[in-house]
């Protein structure tokens, strides 16, 4: 180990964030509560990017916001589950943390970048002021030191002429530069976990690539874990180590990126992958997700389907041999169908008694950079 890692960073002996059976619901004034997230499991390791994929409203953002307790309560409510986070001061359950302790973690140990760089900065302060505020909130430093830290943070995220631009107001920055400022703000306190909620959705493709590369570099140099929320599978393929596909508040598939793209097991994942155009392939029209998930045969392609294992799908009637557990989400199970490849399935008789492992992959893509490769070895 030759690279200078922060002394507080422990060896890669455990996950950074472990989400277990998280359930979040929202009050719906005229109707039953809306179950936004229902029994989600996922794990993030150091220097690993976990991509959470799914369509709008599937619970991706709610999961990320729950990690910082940013869900407004009421109408939101944490029904059950844990979010175990390895904080600098020992393991904590993020969902149960009191507000005062939560504030110490927000921005300091877990930072978040939002989708809208245009409106995520306060228009009345210079960007320097806003980065400094993030620093001063969590570090006992003088204003002058905070200014230096802010300046360095801006240089780290590749903002040219940082000395001059640090005095600029958000409206003087382009979208990509604003997102860089947001990242500088998020990273100024050296968080251990970065929650990136669709960080590139509002940016054009060139800038998108730059920002993602920046995030990747920073993840490596800072030994950060990252939860990347997106619905862009191209972004996932490029950046993620582990992919978690969500639908209707539950995880439908969870595997490392090569495995998932190479051999998707859940029909919904296949639908997702088939609905993106591929270079060098001529087709009249793309398949829609619907065409796949409405095809019964697709659900019988899962390994073990002959034995009665059926992929979970909320629009299907439960199989006849369903043997639900007591309690919420008892009809569903996240099953390790193949080694290190999990699929959400109905809790049928075939998997009875089968508890197995919950998703936890410390898998990382092979490091291409020789320098970081040496550090990892």
């Amino acid at each position, binding site marked *: 180990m030759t690279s200078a890692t922060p002394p507080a960073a422990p060896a890669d002996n455990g996950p950074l964030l472990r989400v277990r059976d998280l359930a979040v619901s929202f009050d719906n004034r005229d109707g039953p509560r809306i179950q936004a997230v229902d029994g989600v499991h996922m794990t993030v390791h150091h220097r690993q990017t976990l991509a959470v994929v799914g369509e709008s409203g599937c619970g991706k953002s709610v999961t990320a916001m729950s990690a*910082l307790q*940013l869900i407004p309560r*009421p109408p939101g409510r944490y029904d059950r589950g844990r979010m175990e986070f390895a904080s600098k001061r020992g393991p904590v359950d993020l969902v149960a943390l009191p507000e005062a302790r939560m*504030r*110490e*973690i*927000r*921005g*300091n140990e877990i*930072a*978040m970048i*939002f*989708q*809208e760089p245009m*409106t*995520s*900065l*306060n*228009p*009345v*302060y210079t960007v320097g002021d806003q980065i400094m*505020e*993030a620093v001063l*909130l*969590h570090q006992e430093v003088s204003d002058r030191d905070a200014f230096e830290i802010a300046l360095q943070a801006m240089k780290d995220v590749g903002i040219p002429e940082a000395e001059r631009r640090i005095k600029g107001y958000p409206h003087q920055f382009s979208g990509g530069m604003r997102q860089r400022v*947001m990242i500088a*703000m*998020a990273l100024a306190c050296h968080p251990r976990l970065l929650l990136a909620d669709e960080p590139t959705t509002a940016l054009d493709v060139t800038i998108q690539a730059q920002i993602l590369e920046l995030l990747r570099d920073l993840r490596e140099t800072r030994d950060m874990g990252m939860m990347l929320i997106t619905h862009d599978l191209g972004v996932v393929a490029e950046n993620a180590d582990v992919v978690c596909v969500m639908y209707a508040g539950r995880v439908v598939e969870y595997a490392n990126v090569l495995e998932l793209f190479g051999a998707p097991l859940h029909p919904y994942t296949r639908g997702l992958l088939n609905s993106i155009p591929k270079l060098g392939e001529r087709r009249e029209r793309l398949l829609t997700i619907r065409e796949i998930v409405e095809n019964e045969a697709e659900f019988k392609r899962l390994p073990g389907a002959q034995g009665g294992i059926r992929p979970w799908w909320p629009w299907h009637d439960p199989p006849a041999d369903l043997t639900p557990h007591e309690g919420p989400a008892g009809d569903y199970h996240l099953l390790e169908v193949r080694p290190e490849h999990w699929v959400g399935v109905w809790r049928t008789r075939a998997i009875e008694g089968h508890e197995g492992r919950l998703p936890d992959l410390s898998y990382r893509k092979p490091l291409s950079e020789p320098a970081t490769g040496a550090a990892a070895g």
Partner: protein
Amino acid sequence: MAPPPGRDNPLTRSVAGLIGVGFLAVMLLACLGSLPWTLGSSGREGEIGLPRYNQGEAREGRLPPWWWPVGKDRARRLNEGVPEAVAAEIAARHGADAEDVRARTSGSAAEELRAHWPRYWLGSDVLGRSVLVRSLSGGAISLGIGLSAALLSVLIGTLYGVVSGYAGGRVDGVMMRIVDVLYGLPYILLVVLLAVAVDALVERRVASRVESLSKERAAYVERGLSGFDAERRQDKALVRRVEQEALERIGTGELSAGRRNAVNVVTLLVAIGGVSWLTMARVIRGQVLSLKEQPFIEAARAMGAGWGRIFGRHLLPNLLGPIIVYATLTVPQAILQESFLSFLGIGVKPPLPSWGNLAAEGLVQLNPYESHWWLLFFPCLLLGLTLLALNFVGEGLREAFDPKRGRR
């Protein structure tokens, strides 16, 4: 580099607004700057230390401004106002007796007398008090009450609006319904009730204090005299001396005229400020409702900022525009309300002047036989111009802060 100053500054775009700012500055300077002079004692002979705004001689009552042409009748009256010694000297020089000279309205003797007429720039009122002095000090009181009441209403309104908007949900609903109910009540009623209630409270406090102090004085006298024998106690001089001592040590508990005026003014400004924050609260609440959903507020929360920091650093600066605009539009309202109440006799009570009660006094003197127009005209002119200027400034600011009027 920074753009050349003044060219594209939204604050200097409105000409009317700039004129308004200039006029207001002059008005404030004149009214407040002259306070030491208008409140000071006039120092005229025979005066008993009345402040200048309340000082005048009845025989100089209802004189027009000196530059106003006067008819014969009034010229004779003005001649009467010339001091005895001066009149006698002029009469001697012209070989006539003083009575005769005072009756003349033309000729060289009259010209000489004219030079000694009492001069009032804006005329004098019924009691011979200078309208200029009273308008200036009245302006100070009107502006003072207007500004402080507006400040008070801005403070209450902003706080109420922010709490209501930020809390949201049921709290917001209840708080806004309260505002709705208050909107429905006639504010005059509220102000009158408040003024009367405070008056009554003050009177009760004063009365009870006067009573308890008089008892204390009696006890003091009793104690002071207890050392003497019965014969000495009949000595009126001694008794008076002890009573005097008691008075000096203990006092009567009566409110001085100045105190009473202060209570009057403060009551009025609290009453006006206390009823005019409603619009402010609504506007601010609306702004907060839209601001708190802005991603940068959420980003601040995600950064670990607490409630106070989000309020102070992220909400308030973004609210500053509407706060300033509504504050400048509340000031003329408050001044108008103050003047209106004083005009009706509920607000500032004479002899303390305010533009409203000056106008009320002037209106009474307006009659077809002899129009004492200056009594009504000048306070109203100042009031009107000030309100106009404030509204211009408010409009100018609103335009400057309006994001929809994109920067050119």
